[in-house]
């Protein structure tokens, strides 16, 4: 801590006694030196620096944040525009309520997010749940076996099936699902009547809030063996085909379900992006003779590009996750061969068999690959000159 800061730390306590707006010893200095950016108006304590004073010279009895509540946050000096924070103790005294507010949520994340993240080390153990009374004891008593689980995993054809299914479904949905919300958003945006647009939006967002159990239930009722479609086909004398339990068309089925559930919701972000496109661009291009399609190509799509890239990155980073509950629910109907994805593989090779270390290894593989994918996708986007994901906050 520099002498300067020590002086301030010492001064903090004293100056607390000053009422807000108290005349500081330097109040006679010209007001033009008050830096408005560092001293919030109304706090009554402007921060000054004395012209001509040596840079490292100590300011005598410098005003410090004090007074009731939060005073000005930062000290700065006009000449260098460098901002100094008040010392930690003073900031703690000021900010402790904020820390108290964050604490419960932080604690929950610690217990239910970070602790399990560390718990992934059971992937390197021959974890035996019965080796102790609690999982912690069992964990401590279980022998370490290095990468044995991973070796077994990579030699397991069922794992490769699951990985192949996952990637196939991701790729399929990238082609047949990803563009749909964009198209729907453009159509919705072009509805001129606000009332009609509102109605359509209300309806298409709705399925997003249904659980997967409900979505699959609706599909079973509509397209299942005893469903409405089969019923109608039987009525007109056709042989009903049961889409719900056909492994060959399963990939189409799950994509259709995803479309039904989320195509409407997916439009929200595109609608927001569409509304930020300057209408004058459309007008100007129309005046220049661009038709409907040319405007779509040269104005609308470029306007959507950052959002599309962002969502594409997120989707690629999530390539190994494909609607887990959706597959859990339908795995029995179509069989493991078609419906096993990485998440269900983890479930059926750990929770149901008790071989936790093995499941954790598969889960860890998925998490690590997922992390690498999203970092790579983000870097790729940056390389293309897009904003990427991490410009947030």
């Amino acid at each position: 801590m520099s002498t300067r800061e020590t002086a301030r730390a010492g001064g903090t306590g004293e100056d607390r006694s000053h009422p807000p707006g108290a005349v500081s010893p330097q109040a006679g200095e010209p007001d033009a030196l008050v830096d408005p950016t560092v001293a919030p108006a109304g706090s009554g304590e402007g921060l000054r620096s004395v012209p001509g004073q040596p840079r490292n010279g100590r300011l005598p009895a410098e005003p410090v944040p004090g007074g009731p509540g939060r005073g000005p946050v930062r000290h700065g000096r006009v000449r260098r525009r460098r901002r100094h924070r008040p010392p930690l103790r003073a900031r703690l005294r000021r900010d402790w309520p904020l820390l108290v507010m964050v604490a419960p949520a932080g604690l929950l994340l610690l217990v239910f997010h970070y602790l399990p993240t560390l718990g992934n080390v059971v992937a390197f153990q021959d974890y035996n749940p019965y080796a102790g009374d609690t999982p912690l004891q069992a964990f401590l008593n279980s022998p370490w076996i290095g990468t044995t689980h991973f070796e077994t995993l990579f030699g397991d054809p069922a794992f490769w099936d699951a990985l192949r299914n996952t990637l196939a479904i991701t790729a399929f949905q990238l082609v047949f699902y990803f563009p749909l919300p964009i198209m729907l958003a453009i159509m919705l945006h072009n509805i001129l009547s606000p009332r009609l647009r509102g109605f359509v939006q209300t309806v298409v967002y709705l399925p997003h809030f249904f659980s997967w159990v409900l979505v699959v239930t609706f599909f079973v009722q509509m397209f299942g063996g005893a469903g409405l479609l089969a019923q109608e086909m039987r009525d007109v004398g056709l042989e009903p085909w049961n889409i719900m339990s056909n492994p060959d068309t399963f990939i189409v089925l799950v994509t259709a379900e995803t479309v039904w559930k989320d195509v409407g919701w997916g439009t929200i972000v595109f609608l927001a992006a569409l509304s930020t496109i300057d209408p004058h661009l459309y007008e100007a291009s129309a005046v220049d003779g661009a038709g409907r399609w040319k405007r779509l190509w040269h104005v609308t799509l470029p306007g959507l590009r950052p959002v599309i890239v962002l969502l594409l990155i997120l989707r690629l980073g999530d390539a190994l996750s494909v609607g887990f509950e959706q597959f859990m629910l339908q795995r029995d109907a179509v069989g493991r061969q078609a419906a096993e994805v990485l998440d269900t593989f983890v479930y059926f090779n750990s929770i149901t068999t008790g071989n936790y270390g093995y499941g954790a290894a598969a889960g860890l593989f998925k998490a690590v690959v997922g992390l690498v994918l999203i970092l790579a996708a983000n870097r790729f986007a940056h390389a293309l000159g897009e904003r990427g994901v991490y410009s947030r906050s």
Partner: protein
Amino acid sequence: MTMTDPLRTAPPHRRRGRSRRPAWEEKPSAVGQVFRGGVLTGVVLAVLVPLWVVLVTSLASRETINEAGGLVMVPREIDFSAYRAIFSGGLVTQALWISTLVTLAGTAVSLVLTVLAAYGLSRPGSVGHRGLLFYFLLTFLIYPGMVPSYLVVTGLGLKDQIWALVLPTAISVFNLVVVRAFFQNIPAELLDSARIDGAGEFRILARIVLPLSRAVIAVVGLFYAVGYWNVWFNALLYIDDNSKFPIQRVLQSFILAGQSPNNAGTLGVSMPPTLAIKMAVVVVTVSPIVLVYPFVQRHFVKGVIIGAVKG
């Protein structure tokens, strides 16, 4: 209902005469109009028809269902016997209570913790701000697998406790970021003036920030509530005792796993048709969402887009 309206800056030539079409825009072709109308009608019907069929079938009598050969599309009478059966105190009634309890308690816990944390994180420059924010945002990149989570939750003794459906998912960092972004949009002068008047952080949050944040609280509350109402997989993992099953779990076992909804309760002589009972379970599972959602939907733009765009 008109959700993009606030964001649609009115084009200069709007509302000339009766048409909202800008003057420079050509008239749409007939083919285009028909195509667009067809697509939008199709999309709307794809959502509404299944809901309609399920509702009508749940209210149909045995004769109507037999005549239709299954699901009913045209209502002929209204018969509440299926609802009477599921509300007469069997597994479904119990599951509805459990789900209601989980949803109410969970949403309350989640909202309180999320709002507190979002406010605590909304002030750049406060002690540990960057570190804490990183701590929260890192959860987007790193997630624990299913197995370690399962071991932690069971290790804490939450197996077969309904808290196992609440605590592990109580904080959604996405929702937190949305709320935080909303809080940061509140003018700082407002908070400063309260501070000068001697209000502490908790009072500022309760008296100034929250009353200004109804929109985002409504939206995030809906997200949390829907999440709790829809909880299925965590119930599969953590709840074995079927007297503590939430409604999604029961729905799944009735309809997808094909168990018959035998309500060994106070059933009358004539048992309503199984199909009607199943559909009635679907209807009671859907209806809280369908009933609450439209009231919150108008806040979506205000509450979420701001967060998403700024966040």
